[in-house]
């Protein structure tokens, strides 16, 4: 599940808003996946992204982060 305890793990991974996500993406080679965040959970988040409005492009950047990490 993406919610519950995993929400905090995603926060740690993505940072806040589009600025935080962009900073992570720019440093993607050094990004470490937070402890406890599984590939299955990241894949679940990735699949949900297209089901909401992306108000500031934040989700698009997060999807790129996940695409890197899920390779």
């Amino acid at each position: 599940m993406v919610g519950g305890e995993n929400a905090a793990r995603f926060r740690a991974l993505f940072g806040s808003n589009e600025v935080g996500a962009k900073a992570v993406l720019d440093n993607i080679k050094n990004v470490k996946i937070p402890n406890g965040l599984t590939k299955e959970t990241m894949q679940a988040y990735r699949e949900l992204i297209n089901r909401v409005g992306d108000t500031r492009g934040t989700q698009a950047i997060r999807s790129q982060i996940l695409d890197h990490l899920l390779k």
Partner: protein
Amino acid sequence: MLLILFVNNIFKLFYCDSIINVESFKINETKYFIDDISKKNEGFIGFFDWLRINDKKIIGIRICYFEDLSYNSFLLQLPFVKPAFENKCMEILFEGDTYNADLSGDQDFTNNYVFKSLSGEYLYTFGLDNLTQEELNGLIKHCKVIKGSDLIDSH
């Protein structure tokens, strides 16, 4: 966490000093029960943006729930809810009528639960852990402050 109570075509804001992690609780003698969908998804039912007028002040919230959830149709029929992004999102302003879009892209998703009373009143919760203390202090000014322990004790 922030609680938004929708009742009789108005909304009321509450600030709770702790996370509500219960199946039901009471506010003003009305009991609210957690909705099955938000419970099943552990509070992840979409995303929300804090609407800021500047980098220190929050004046509203933009809610973007997953497209198939009934929460959308409920919110969209309320007179104070403004549709945005082709009805994929909904905005509620606590004050004023404008905000700075460049500062309002959190896409947060923590502790976003929905509760409902037996008489059909909805109450939505939103996690606040993304906010600075200054933002939080400003937001609280719009809210009635309640203690989480009081809610739990009122079962």
